[in-house]
């Protein structure tokens, strides 16, 4: 009798432990993020009703202005999953925007040729960083820190001026409005405003989906997760760790160039100071979305939620007409919170597994 009771208790205990382990997992962090976003967004909708924050267009504007960040954050997620980091993305964005601007405005190069050159530069940049990290086993942070300063310096070498882009092909894409058939409203002047998105949002979402499928449905994606979880064991298992890392960083370079193009569609200019601190936003988006910095876990959907949370904070700060450095402080605080939460959850998970 007592024996079966003991068995029963043991079964309950182990079952509870596995539930606890799941509960403390990173899906839980993603859940926190999504719930937090919904709460913050709902509050914002009610508080700032007077400036149309409750309309669909506000949500679409958040997408419109963050298309580049969405792509770059998903590239960053991939790099974080493999256990690395890339903090050169902000400077790279500035450099690619400047290259686009100079090529199209000063040298009259065709729009499509300019884009191709930028993409190739991105691949080369990513390849060099990836080669240094994977084949020379240098610390990713040091290499990409150098990359960050290199790219920012190169932007100044190209030109120190601010150039706005007026190329016809470019402007046609940048200013095109894709009308959404529902959610239109009539403003105070009696005009019907139809909600719209720019093409860069479509491109960004397409990029996001491609990376999501690449990471979760292909052999390459499985390899990335395996290597991030344990490099030694993956190597013993027969995976080509160095090549996979190199491919990830190269692909990330391409994604940064793509993100920079989308960013440029939004800003339509080249400037040395552009996208400063962008790397921080990308890392913060990934971390807030439940990708720990230790590698092996994470997904790009979370990073998307992370981007949207940050933009909610930004729009809140804008609506309160506070200074922009408040947004910096809020995002840093949120990042600190999530990093600490992850570390606490990791410790709890360890405990739950042992218990």
């Amino acid at each position, binding site marked *: 009798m007592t024996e079966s009771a003991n068995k029963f208790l043991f079964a309950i205990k182990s079952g509870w432990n596995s539930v606890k382990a799941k509960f403390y997992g990173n899906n839980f962090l993603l859940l926190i993020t999504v719930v937090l976003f919904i709460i913050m967004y709902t509050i914002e909708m009610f508080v700032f009703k007077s400036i149309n924050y409750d309309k669909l267009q506000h949500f679409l504007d958040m997408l419109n202005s963050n298309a580049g960040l969405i792509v770059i954050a998903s590239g960053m997620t991939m790099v974080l999953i493999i256990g690395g*980091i890339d*903090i050169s993305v902000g400077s790279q964005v500035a450099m690619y925007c400047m290259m686009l601007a100079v090529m199209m405005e000063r040298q009259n190069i065709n729009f499509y040729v300019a884009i191709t050159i930028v993409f190739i530069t991105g691949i080369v940049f990513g390849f060099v960083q990836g080669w*240094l990290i994977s*084949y*020379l*086993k*240098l*610390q990713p*942070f*040091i*290499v990409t*820190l*150098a*990359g*960050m*300063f*290199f790219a*920012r*310096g*190169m932007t*100044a*070498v190209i030109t*120190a001026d601010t150039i706005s882009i007026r190329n016809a092909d470019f402007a046609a894409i940048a200013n095109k409005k894709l009308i959404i058939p529902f959610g239109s409203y009539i403003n105070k002047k009696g005009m019907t405003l139809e909600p719209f998105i720019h093409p860069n949002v479509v491109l960004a979402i397409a990029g996001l989906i491609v990376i999501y499928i690449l990471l979760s449905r292909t052999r390459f994606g499985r390899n990335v997760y395996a290597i991030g979880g344990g490099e030694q064991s993956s190597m013993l298992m027969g995976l080509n760790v160095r090549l996979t890392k190199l491919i990830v960083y190269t692909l990330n370079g391409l994604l940064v160039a793509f993100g920079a193009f989308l960013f440029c569609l939004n800003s339509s200019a080249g400037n*040395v100071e552009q996208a400063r*601190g962008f790397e*921080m936003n990308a*890392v913060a988006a990934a971390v807030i979305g439940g990708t720990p*910095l*230790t590698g092996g876990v994470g997904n790009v959907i979370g990073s998307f939620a992370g981007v949207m949370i940050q933009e909610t904070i930004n729009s809140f700060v804008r609506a309160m007409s506070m*200074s922009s*450095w*408040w947004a*910096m*402080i809020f*995002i*840093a*605080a949120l*990042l*600190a919170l999530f*990093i*600490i939460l992850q*570390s*606490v959850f990791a410790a709890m998970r360890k405990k739950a597994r042992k218990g």
Partner: protein
Amino acid sequence: MNDGVWRKFNKMTKSGRLLFPLVCLFLVLIMNLIVTPDFFSVKIMDIGGEPHLYGRVIDILNRASELIILATAMTIVVSCSAGTDISVGAVMAFSGAVSVWFLGYGVLGVNGKFSVFEYQIPYAVGIMTALAIGSLCGVFNGFLVSRLKIQPMVATLILYTGGRGAAQLFAGGQIDRVEVLSYKWLGNFIPGIPVPTSIFLAAAVVAITAVVLRYTALGIFIQSVGINNKASRIMGLRSSRIVLLAYTFCGLCAAIAGLIATSRIGAIDANNCGRNIELDAILAVALGGNSLSGGKFSLGGSVIGAITIQSLTTSLLAMNVTADQLPVYKAIAVIIIVALQSAELKPLINRNLARLTGKAVVK
């Protein structure tokens, strides 16, 4: 005594620890001497009735003082935690901004005026607040790294962004001037002394650190934690406390550097104070022959590295490279140095050489 020092120096250069940084410094100095023949001349100039030492070398040492202080702290951080503190520049700005805010409390930002003509609290208290704020930032970083086991560079990334934002907040988004004569002493000259004060400060920080590490067991402890954290803990060292101490020291040093930087221009410019200096500090540590993956360290190497970098910066600026473009050269230098340090480089080259020569033989 002198003989012993010389023997030790010989030993160190021969074992290669200090040879590399010294060669780099030598190359930069030679380059400078060719470009400007009067590079080493030092004169005493009379500026406003005060004797001031004047010359390129003095200038470089003066400008390098913040970097020397930061490189000293960074060496210890790198040694014990195998990671770098990238928040030092932001902490510099933050502590400088807080001290100026306290010195001008109630005056600054009122009626749209951003100048302080009179200390509102004693100067010493202002300095103390800066040092306290710097140490607090260090404790925050150290707590994240040592207790929560977050990678150092990621943990310090929080203050890297947040710190500058907070500095802007205290400075009110403006460049706050302090128009009191004694405020400029730290970064310039104290009346009657011809040598810039910051050189003394840098020398003091390096000397105190070196003496403490040399004559207590702390130096050994730090290295042992850096080489193997777990083993040190099992051996009975409080590893996490040592790491916490190292980061606190780094915060303190960043505050000292921040005080010098704000005092030098007599104002706090939260956007540009200590900007990009973290790369220089890391570069100085790497140039000094220290491995960025922790363990053994040489303070002397880092100091030489810091002076080398400042000479390089000064000479590049003299060659009409703008401040915006400087990072390109420095980034290339960092990559070359860390690539040369990499243990993977030699086998890789050998393998490829063998493959090449092998193919040549077959043909």
